């Protein structure tokens, strides 16, 4: 043992998917959480169903950092296919728990790590009373025991983790606990700890729960009163829809009659999904869909219809790596500018950019209000990291808040107004009043169309009427600047700042600490919506250099900022881009900021016209 590293290291379980390792990893994660130790879990999985490499990174961190960490301190190596590379990734002084049968030569023969060979297969075969295929699966539970014993996981916490995981199947829980115990016993009897990593209970998780963003989005939609879900399966958004269905089946089915207070339609594709959403919203229900890149592309035409015909809609984009099919099981923030102006012609859609699970929940609710208020499709941009990984978060607060259904005239309200025109700007905010089909008032009816229309919703090709109408739409969406949440600002008068949005937040939090350690104090601006809130430009104006960190290749937010900012402010931006599909880590931000600040102190070379467009990372 070369020292003592307490509650601050990273465990990586390298397995193959379909092998059941997911349960083992969740048990470890939950056990740590039960011990009060902050934990961050990242599942890096392949786009197939069985037999391909999967890595599950469990980070324990006293500060509660939630970002991915590059370093692997403890490797649990179960996958022969990636074995050599996995071992090579372990940091010097790290530890390797591995299937004893894996051959330790070549790159896998390092003498600067602690080796813990365990005959998982044999143990499962010899010690477990279970069917062969179950045995294979339980091998992974054995490594939970090995790890628990090596790093000092509280057995009670592990048991609780197992019981959580198999809540509805007590028998399965027992079997799994037996497997864990085999690992514990084997370790006690055969292994000598030579690495420094261990855990001890602390008080870092009180009042928090473990939750993924997709379930938070589903719950937010539920609380917002969404009644129609239309979707087409696509990773990483499917789990959002499936969670909505699960919850709705739990809370929205009349126990006596079986009648359902929601409709969840698995559409034939994304074109139909958005069509169903628009049809439902047009008829007055709150409706949503969730998808990812390819689905967004397919929704382009109808989203434009929603914009122009002024129909609310909520679209969750759980971003994955694009373009094209890309890496379906990896994370990215690559759809930002595309969704903001999705569809041909002049279009512009409000976009919400939650950065935490709690914000996903809030923004999910907010998105319906914004959509209703502005009568327009609204995007909520999340990503695979935020959506599918488990995050530590405060419990989601119950909502009793009324919802904002916007300017809807019912039969009675119509009686009160002498004149009503569907697309007239009465209040000067660009937002007209609408009626719903089925309103029992002969004046309620109007004809919705994606073609040219006047204030009365009548067909027209009149140039002036057309221009006035789309200019009203422009003004209407301008209103979103202050309707969407203001940016999160952490400011202490520093000259240098970091700007980010969405899940990149967590790496920024950590990067700022790293930078402070290097003597670079930074302020922080986190953008929470598009179009930009006025506070964004104001913040930038108070800083000399603003590093815009994002998870895409083309610096999409930076480009949007440049479009809007006066040149003098635009030139203060520096772009940091991370686009390899694994969640961004703190160094991906702190390294280029450090480099940038260093360069700042040296005389600048003549800059080419588009020098700022060259990726920094």
């Amino acid at each position, binding site marked *: 043992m070369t020292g003592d590293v307490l509650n601050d290291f990273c465990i990586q379980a390298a397995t193959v998917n379909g092998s059941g390792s997911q349960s083992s990893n969740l048990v470890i994660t939950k056990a740590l959480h039960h011990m009060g130790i902050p934990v961050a879990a990242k599942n890096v999985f392949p786009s197939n169903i069985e037999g391909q490499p999967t890595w599950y990174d469990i980070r324990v961190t006293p500060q509660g950092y939630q970002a991915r960490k590059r370093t692997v301190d403890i490797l649990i190596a179960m996958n022969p296919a990636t074995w050599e590379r996995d071992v090579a990734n372990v940091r010097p002084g790290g530890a390797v728990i591995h299937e004893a049968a894996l051959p330790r030569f070549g790159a896998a023969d390092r003498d600067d790590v602690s080796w813990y060979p365990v005959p998982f297969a044999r143990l499962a075969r010899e010690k477990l009373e279970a069917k062969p295929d179950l045995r294979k699966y339980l091998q992974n539970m054995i490594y939970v025991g090995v790890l628990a014993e090596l790093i000092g996981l509280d057995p009670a916490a592990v048991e609780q983790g197992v019981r959580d995981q198999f*809540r509805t199947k007590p028998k399965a829980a027992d079997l799994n606990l037996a497997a864990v115990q085999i690992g514990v016993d084997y370790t006690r009897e055969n292994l000598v700890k030579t690495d420094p990593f261990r855990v001890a209970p602390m008080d870092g998780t009180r009042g*928090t*729960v*473990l939750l993924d963003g997709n379930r938070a989005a589903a719950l937010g939609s*539920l609380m*917002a*009163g*969404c*009644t*129609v879900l*239309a979707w087409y399966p696509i990773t990483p958004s499917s789990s959002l829809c499936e969670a909505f269905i699960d919850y709705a089946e*739990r*809370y*929205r089915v009349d126990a006596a009659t*079986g*009648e*359902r*207070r*929601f*409709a*969840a*339609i698995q*559409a*034939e594709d994304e074109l*139909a999904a*958005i*069509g*169903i*959403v*628009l*049809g*439902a*919203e*047009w*008829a*007055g*229900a709150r409706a949503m869909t969730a998808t990812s890149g390819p689905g967004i592309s397919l929704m382009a*035409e*109808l989203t434009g*219809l929603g914009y122009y015909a002024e129909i609310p809609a909520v679209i969750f984009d759980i971003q994955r790596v694009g373009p094209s099919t890309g890496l379906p099981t990896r994370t990215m923030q690559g759809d930002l500018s595309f969704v903001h102006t999705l569809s041909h012609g002049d279009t512009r859609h409000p976009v919400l950019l939650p950065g935490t699970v709690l914000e996903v929940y809030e923004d999910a609710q907010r998105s319906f209000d914004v959509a209703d208020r502005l009568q327009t499709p609204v995007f909520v941009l999340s990503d695979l990291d935020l959506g599918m990984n488990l995050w530590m978060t405060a*419990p*989601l607060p*119950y*909502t009793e808040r009324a*919802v904002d259904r916007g300017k809807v005239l019912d039969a009675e309200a119509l009686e009160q107004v002498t004149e009503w025109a569907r697309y007239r700007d009465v209040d000067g905010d660009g937002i007209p009043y609408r*009626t*719903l*089909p*089925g309103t029992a008032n*002969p004046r*309620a*009816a*109007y*004809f*919705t*169309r*994606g*073609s040219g229309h006047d204030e009365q919703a*009548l*067909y027209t090709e009149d140039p002036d009427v057309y221009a006035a109408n789309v200019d009203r739409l422009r003004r209407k969406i301008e209103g979103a600047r202050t309707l969407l949440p203001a940016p999160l600002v952490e400011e202490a008068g520093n000259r240098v700042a970091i700007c980010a949005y969405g899940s990149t937040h967590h790496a920024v939090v950590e990067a700022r600490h790293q930078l402070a350690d290097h003597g670079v104090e930074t302020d922080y601006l986190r953008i929470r919506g598009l179009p930009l809130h006025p506070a964004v430009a104001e913040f930038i104006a108070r800083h000399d250099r603003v590093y815009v960190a994002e998870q895409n290749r083309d610096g999409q937010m930076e480009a949007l900022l440049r479009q809007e900012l006066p040149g003098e402010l635009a030139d203060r931006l520096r772009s940091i881009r991370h686009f390899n599909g694994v969640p961004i880590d703190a160094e991906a931000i702190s390294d280029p900021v450090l480099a940038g600040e260093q360069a700042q102190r040296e005389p600048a070379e003549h800059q080419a016209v588009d020098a700022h467009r060259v990726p920094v990372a």
Partner: protein
Amino acid sequence: MAVAIEKLNRLGLNRDDYKGAHTTLCAGCGHNSITNHIVKALYDSAIEPHLIAKMSGIGCSSKAAAYFVEHAHGFNGAHGRMPSLATGAKLANRDLVVFGVSGDGDTASIGLGQYCHMIRRNLDMTYIIENNGVYGLTKGQSSATADLGSRPKRGPANRYEQIDISALAIELGASFVARSFSGDGKQLVPLIQAALAHRGTGVLDVISPCVTFNDHEGSTKSYAYVKDHDAPVNTPDYIAPLEEITVDYEPGTGQDVELHDGSHILLRKIGPDHDARDRMAAMRLLFEARQSGEIVTGLLYVNPEADDLCTREALTSRPLAQLPVEELRPSREQWDALMAGLA
């Protein structure tokens, strides 16, 4: 001043209450005739205007949704996407009488996927395809229902077999499929009424000549051709549930089908002895007609037992759009339990 006494329907509305904006379609277009038949059917069936949701895609035919029932909400959507928009509208408010007008381009080309899946779901709506074998609005290109060898006004002759949207619907398990002709109000009006009464997708494949681009000799979608080759399998009479059955015609050799709301459609057989409840018979009829160049019209197939979408989804009887948010949220206790389970 003498006021003409207008005949009022059960709701006390006259026929003009079912009229819409003035048509901008070509004079003589079959679609205009269909509009008139729609007006009559909705009036005769006494549908509440404010409960009607007129849906359409894009095309000359789809424009027609604006030309009837002015006091109904309407939605002229996007090309080929009406089925999904209609699905959403019906789910949101199952009280709506969803009434769709589409074209053959809209339905059989760009919208074919949505059309098939709407039928699979048996969405409760009336879905009229104003079938002219041509893209009217884009000036006369052949559509997927154009016959092999037919020549559009310009461009090459069509080299592909037609898609038979009626037969396709029946193959996919549609619960109501009829074919008719824009010029035959006597047949079409009761068919529209029956489709309205039917709970499920009522497909009405209506041959509707395009006088501007596809009414020339040789086109099977021309007035002349249909007049010569129409082989009606039945002439329907529609009997609303409120009317007495003792009406002024003889059921005689007819087939009587009871629809969801207790209304009846009575088919007087003129063509071959067709049983509109027999799916394979309907398929055979269409197949043989296609081979002989005949256009069979009438109620081809109906299955009043098939569950519609809202039934399959076990929707509450109240429109989802009208549920207050309080009924949609879990209770605080449920919520707390849920959160506790995540800790």
